[in-house]
């Protein structure tokens, strides 16, 4: 799988590249700012661009803006956005045109080797990955307590979180140490309780769950 890695911190970028190469990825380009990133992605057409949110020129959210531009102009390129903080707002901006080939993770997850490389691979295959912290924000806030979430069993809530993170049925089954069939049962129950239309594909499922969670109850 071919990657472009963009981060303005040389130290961190070199570390990322080594880590990804050791995990078997081919890093075809590196970028230190948003303009260079867009240029390299256009030139190399990688499977995934791994992008830090805060980069030059303005050192605010240039990486996120570049990621949105890549999504618009080169939809076949997956984007995995890394950020020191994860914010619902950014997640919505990234996912508003569909969740296929999009990832959004806290930056320090890169040190969780297994999870990080899995996320890169998942995004490269057109899947979607959301940081558990975003999902926690969406689920954790008390604003939903008067809603249908209260009807979910603890197991179903766990399943919902993992779905929102973009895990596949298999991934959820491994995480919860249950059978694939049990996961399917949980999912079907969740969709019924929340009144959602069942959607099979993982990334569409993420969107449906996200929309449900971020819809402010009104």
């Amino acid at each position, binding site marked *: 799988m071919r990657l472009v890695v963009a981060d303005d911190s040389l130290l*961190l970028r070199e*570390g990322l590249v080594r*880590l990804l190469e050791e995990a078997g990825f081919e890093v075809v380009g590196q970028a230190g700012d948003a303009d260079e990133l867009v240029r390299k992605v256009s030139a190399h057409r990688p499977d995934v661009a791994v992008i830090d949110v805060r980069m030059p020129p303005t050192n605010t959210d240039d990486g996120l803006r570049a990621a949105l531009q890549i999504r618009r102009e080169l939809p076949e390129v997956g984007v995995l956005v890394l950020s020191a*903080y994860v914010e619902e707002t950014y997640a919505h901006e990234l996912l508003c045109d569909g969740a296929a080939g999009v990832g959004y993770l806290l930056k320090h997850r*890169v040190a969780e080797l297994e999870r990080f490389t899995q996320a890169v691979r998942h995004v490269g295959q057109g899947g979607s990955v959301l940081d558990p912290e975003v999902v926690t924000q969406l689920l954790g806030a*008390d604003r939903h307590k008067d809603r249908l979430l209260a009807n979910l069993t603890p197991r179903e809530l766990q399943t919902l979180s993992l779905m929102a993170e973009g895990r596949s049925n298999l991934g959820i089954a491994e995480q919860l140490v249950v059978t694939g069939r049990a996961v399917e049962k949980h999912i079907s129950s969740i969709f019924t309780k929340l009144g959602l239309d069942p959607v099979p594909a993982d990334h569409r499922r993420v969107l449906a769950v996200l929309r449900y969670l971020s819809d402010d109850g009104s």
Partner: protein
Amino acid sequence: MPEPGADILIVAGSELVVSTVRTPLEDAGHRVRAVADGPSALTELNRQLPDVVMAEWDLSGVDSLGLCRAVRLDPELCGTHVIVMTSAARTARAAEALEAGADDYLAIPVERSELLARVRTGRRTAQLRASEARLRALMANVPGAIYRCAPDRDWTMELISDEIERISGYPSGDFIDSEVRTFASIIHPEDRERVEAAVFEACAAARPFVLEYRIQRADGDSRWVLERGQLVHGTNGRTWLDGAIFDISAQREAERERRKREAEQARVAELRASRARIIEAADAARRRIERDLHDGAQQRFTAVALQLRLLISRLQRSAPDVALPVEEALDELQRAIDELRELARGIHPALLSERGLVRAVEALISRLPMSVKLREAPAQRLPQAVEAGLYYVIAETLTNACKHADAGAVSIAIGRADGRAWVEVADDGVGGATASEGSGLGGLKDRVEALDGRLTVLSPPGGGTTVRAEVACA
């Protein structure tokens, strides 16, 4: 240059007199009216005042004496020149006519050249008298004392209008010929030398002068006056100072008040601006610290975590027993990164700069362990300083609600209208909060006031707490 014709009114009972006088006057270009008796003459005079009245002495139906007196007594009519006409045989009576108020007399018949000369003189006199009357009216009506004085050290007055009494408290008569006191003596001692020097300098240079100085009134008060004057050359080679003195105490007082007010306003504005600058500088420092933490320590720690991870994956192959403690170190490092991240976010939420107040507040709410509802929010972003101010009001108030209020539910409303932005945070907790000095709410008060705003806290014991901040927002 020939003079324009004069307006002449002839008052005569006899046709002979009328024709003798009228024809030569009209030939000379004068406009002549004629009436036959005293009452008609008065009517004509009041209709339009002539330059010259020529009245026949005591002939049938004309009471010349009465007419003269009437003209002299009426201020409206006194500008006209009255010539009494007598027959040559009766010139002895001329004295009587002059006594009654006539200006001149003429024996009829008269030489044409003499007639015209007398009329010309009469008209000039009438004009002089009219301009003098105008001057007197002016002097009486100008809100200042008009004067003419000798250019000496005493300001010896030839004349000074009555207004000086209102200004100085001394009657104008006191100053005429320095009868009772000199004008110089009422100039404030501290100003006298300066005034004298300025006046003499202006006179020497033949320039008009304008001066402001104090006088000492009869009642002991000081008054500020403005004097305008100029050296003029009169008859007989004499020189005079002509000018006017105005009381400007009220204006000066108003001016002083205005300056004081402006200085006070400027001071208040400067205080407010400096407070705003201090808070803006603090906000800028917060943004910088957050950025430094993010670009510096956070990045480095993450890079170190990465290196540790790579090290661990190698150790797992070559020396698995060493890998475990390194993994523990990495876990510890991850916790440090988490703490650092939360610290940086508390110092300044990056989302506030990048996506604005509403998104930052939503993110803040989503991390809180209590039910908070944002029920109203503006669609547009607000100025940076306003967003920062309102954000910290909300953040601090929510922290208080979490820690102290024992609140079950909190609602937030943010709005903007009529050049103001406001935020209201209401909880259903125990109440009893105060915005006193040193408390978190006290700090918010300073911040809000620096934005030309007001912080109000409504927190009755047991009745929940509502904090409202309203700031200027152009």
